[in-house]
């Protein structure tokens, strides 16, 4: 292991890390925004649920490298375009979260929804102030899986020339340089743990009632 390589290459490493974060997290945010309405529809309309959830499962099953490679034909982008990675990961995130959102919203106790309606909440306000917050724990669980999974998948993008920590893997492999690969692995795992931790904290903040007098 040539540890001296790391201080010599901070620009490369930090740049790769920054690109990686962006490519992994934008799909999570965009995916969440798309998944919430879809999941809400699925929780309301059983017929839609029967369509969305299996479709989501199928989409999630398709291996990432295959999607990265096939998307250019569908989107008309170039093969080496980072947009392929972002779109592919957004699809995965939506596929993953739609089920989480649908289950979470479906599991909100009917009693509470009824009570809120009785208190005079209009449906829109009720959704935002009552149902969505109650769905947060399951949503956060889904987001955690999506975020960590995306962080791992972005590195596969290096095979189609997309930047990120995956570059450290392909370069290290070409030059017979385990140190570089190991650096990339460690940073990927650390990044995932940090993002995971942040999401856990966000979840705790968003559900103070779960802490107060919880019987967990």
């Amino acid at each position, binding site marked *: 292991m040539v540890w001296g390589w790391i201080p010599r290459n901070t620009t490369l490493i930090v740049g790769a890390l920054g690109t990686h974060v962006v490519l992994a997290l934008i799909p999570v945010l965009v995916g969440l925004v798309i998944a919430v309405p879809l999941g809400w529809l699925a929780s309301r309309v059983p017929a839609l649920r029967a369509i969305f959830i299996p479709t989501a499962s199928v989409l*999630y099953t398709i291996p990432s490298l295959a999607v990265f490679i096939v998307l250019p034909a569908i989107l008309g982008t170039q093969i080496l375009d980072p947009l392929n990675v972002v779109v592919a990961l957004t699809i995965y995130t939506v596929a993953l979260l739609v089920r989480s959102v649908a289950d979470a919203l479906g599991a909100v106790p009917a009693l509470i929804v009824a009570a809120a309606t009785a208190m005079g909440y209009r449906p829109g306000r009720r959704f935002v102030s009552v149902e969505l917050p109650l769905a947060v724990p399951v949503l956060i669980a889904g987001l955690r899986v999506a975020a960590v999974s995306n962080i791992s998948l972005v590195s596969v993008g290096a095979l189609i020339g997309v930047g990120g920590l995956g570059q450290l893997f392909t370069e290290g492999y070409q030059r017979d340089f385990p140190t570089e690969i190991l650096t990339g692995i460690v940073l990927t795992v650390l990044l995932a743990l940090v993002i995971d931790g942040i999401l856990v904290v966000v979840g705790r903040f968003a559900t103070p009632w779960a802490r107060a007098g919880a019987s967990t």
Partner: protein
Amino acid sequence: MTLLFSYLFDPAHWSGPGGIPARVGEHLFYSVLALALGAIVAVPLGAFIGHTHRGGFLVVGTANGMRALPELGLLTLLVLLIGINLLPVTIALAVLAVPPLLAGTYSGVRNVDAGAVDAARGMGMREWQILTKVELPNALPLVLGGFRAAALQVIATAAVAAYVSFGGLGRLLIDGLKTLDYSQMAAGAIMVAVLALVVEGLLALVQRAVVSPGLRGGGRRSPTAEITRTAVPARADNPEPAGVTS
């Protein structure tokens, strides 16, 4: 459009050592090896921790951490260190199989109805008998769910192994990518997706066949829990939807 499928429709590509069936065979071979290794490690561990109800936190944390391991990084590192034989591929893929298997076995065993375990203890069963005769059979739905997730994860990731010179369906993707042969890439993408779906379907059938009908409902949720606690289905501590792959 037909140009895109020309690779698939060419009969020459369906025979011989580089043919599609051979690649499917290689792909499944790597996957089975990895799943076996992963199961040998994860199932006993998850069962033990689930049974003793200790160290659960460790399981969830480790499973999450391992899910973060980048497959391309693992493969390249292990191949550089070990060489081009089955060992690096099997280890790298097994590492990815362990989190779902561990999480599934752990939550399966842990969530077995306490009453049943208690009754077994009351009948004088020893701990390991409780584990094998009561907990594991009851845990089967979640264990199999974990196995399904692991199988999909492995099949999906085995495609990347082609980058580090292994066979399998990823070969079509990587070779096609290097020569910008779109139809070869399309063939690889389609076959890998089809394989993943077929395996998922088969395992779903197996799950249905093997799990005892009394357990098909899956998970335990008492009605009162619904009202008094935050709505958190049993899956929250096993945040792994059945179709998780990468």
